[in-house]
């Protein structure tokens, strides 16, 4: 995990809402945000280290359909903007 303490230059953090259809990413952590939303994301399986694919995007661009743990989860982009990820494919 990249901790950038003491470095003034901001490291651009990628989050789940920026992924495109078909992209794959590993979840690093969920930063802040609304507690209930975070708890719900954790409950639905978005924990550290899990690999998520963007399965579909709604015809109007939002919400998105995630694929993880062998099932599909619908989320709004806003709901996952605090989920920090690294793109792997």
């Amino acid at each position, binding site marked *: 995990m990249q901790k950038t303490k003491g470095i003034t230059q901001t490291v651009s953090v990628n989050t789940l809402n920026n992924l495109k259809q078909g992209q794959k990413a590993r979840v690093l952590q969920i930063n802040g945000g609304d507690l209930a939303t975070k708890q719900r*994301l954790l409950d*639905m399986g978005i924990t550290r280290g899990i690999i998520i694919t963007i399965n579909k995007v709604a*015809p109007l661009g939002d919400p998105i359909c995630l694929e993880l743990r*062998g099932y599909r*989860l*619908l989320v*709004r982009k806003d*709901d996952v903007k605090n989920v920090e990820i690294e793109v792997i494919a």
Partner: protein
Amino acid sequence: MRIALIGNQNSGKTSLFNLLTGTNQKVGNWPGVTIERKSGILRTTTFEIIDLPGIYSLSPFSPEEEIVRRFLIEEKIDLIVNIVDSTAIERSLYLTTQLYDFNIPMVIALNMADLAFEQGIRINHDLLSKLLGVPIIPISALKRTGIKELIQLIKKGEFNTANYPVIYQGELLNIIKKVEDNILMRERRFLAIKLLENDISLPIRIELDASKERDLLMQNYESDIPQVVADQRYEFIEKVRDKTVSSRENPRTLTDKIDRIILNKYLAIPIFILIMFTVYFLSAGPVGQALAGLIEDLFAWISVHFATFLENVGASPWAVSLMIDGIVTGVGAVLSFVPQLIILFLLIAFLEASGYMSRIAFFFDRVFRKVGLSGKALIPFIIGSGCSVPAIMATRTINDENERRLTILLTPFIPCSAKLPIITLFAGYFFKDNYGLVSASLYFLAVFVILMTALVMKKLLYKGGYSPFIQELPTYKAPNLNYVFKTTWEKTSAFITRAGSIIFLASIFIWILLSFNWTFTYGVPIEESILSDIGRLFSWVFYPFLGVNSWAAAVSIIQGLIAKEQVITSLSIIAGLSGEAGNATTIFTSPIFSFFTPASAYAFMAFNLFSAPCFGAIGAMHKEFGSSRKMLKAVLIQTAVAFLIATIIYQGATLIGGLL
């Protein structure tokens, strides 16, 4: 023995419950909320089995989760039957890991074993059972396999929690143990974790300060506790999965193939419109109309022959009038819509059971979000085209309070099946050539009014924060035909029962009020009847969109409160008593209703569509709002909106008509 049935949404829990209990069921409500509470007796035993709401976790994020955890803490449960979806085993087991914390004996029913097999998922049941420390029975609720084995296992009744695995590890486990040592209840582990997570909505008070331990853990893990707990639960599940489950890398399921078309960027919305048009075409449209016509003919035939029969046996004129003009006309007007309703209920049940409803929420969320609703609101709206009562109850799936209240307020705006007769009658007569277009236009008007009202109300009344939209996309299922037919029958028979009771009594009541004057003389002209005077008292209210003071229209509208189809009943009885009973032509050529113009007909339809719904729906609103004041406010808003729309339509159309 008391058994709790617990599992995720869409896990086949209700099907399993039906299989376990047969017809031996009791349906009620959970205290304080309108979520259905079902309990029954396990087949061939005396054990009580309770069907708990479908949930993913015990956080609690929703009222359903709140109910389940309160239930597990407060009630003495001897056994949990945990239904696990084999096709989404990791997410299903997450709930299982939380159930361990309650220290209640458990059995796992591994559902959709057949479907998982088809998808190439192989599960080593024996090893899974050993690692999870609970007996496992693979079942298929759809194909009804494994049910006998499950019942037999429960009957043997040798359960304990001794073999439960240890889910948590390291410092977290140490601290949990330290905290739970101070709690003397069976579910001490669950309570200890919730204390550490700082969950403030626990159903019981525990006088224990765990803040020191919490801080210690947060330092140790450099993270908040819910994150650590969830990570460790899923780590445990992943370890179990690696040892017991093998699956193909990328299974191409049938759901994927269907969704590639149904959720396609360009096709999704046209397909939705096509489906809704089909529903409309079959129920409200030409097909349903033709069927309704047949029933109408039947009642006309009954009416004629019954009257002859009564006269032949020497019944007095008033008795003949009561039977024919009152009861047969009134009840018949309502029953002629039964075929349309059966079709509508069938199609909605079909859509509900198939998994398509979640897709609609998915691709329309963006639109509804703009006006303060979420895609989830569409589900009550679609159910609402059948009946507002279950639709208002379906708003329970919306977690955010403000969003839910707004949805409850708006749901009755959807033309429900009881409003259909009004549309059919008026549009069929006044817009004969454009019937389809005009009746469809009312649905579009409803959508427009819903969006506009939502936008205004969001700013004025239901201001609220943001609520997330996080939900499972279920796989498509071949709808369980048993379920489809059962719900269709339940709804239809409820409608018929109403026609036989409320409408029957109301028909007699109106006939009396129409046939007598204040000195109780029978056979007075209809303009001198009691009802006409009552109507005159209110008729000015409706002047702005009818263009006349009509007591007959006024009393008919007011009767819509009993049931919307009663509007039609009232129109037919009044027209029947003033001339000849029967179809639209006789109603609108009778002197009493001949004032209707296309403009006022359209306005009349719109008013009945949007004004205060029937008492049934108002009752449901009261229950869901949980307050008479909020309910009353909503009813007044609805009626005000209806009045405004109807007046704009009538005055606008009259103005344009005058200019032309």
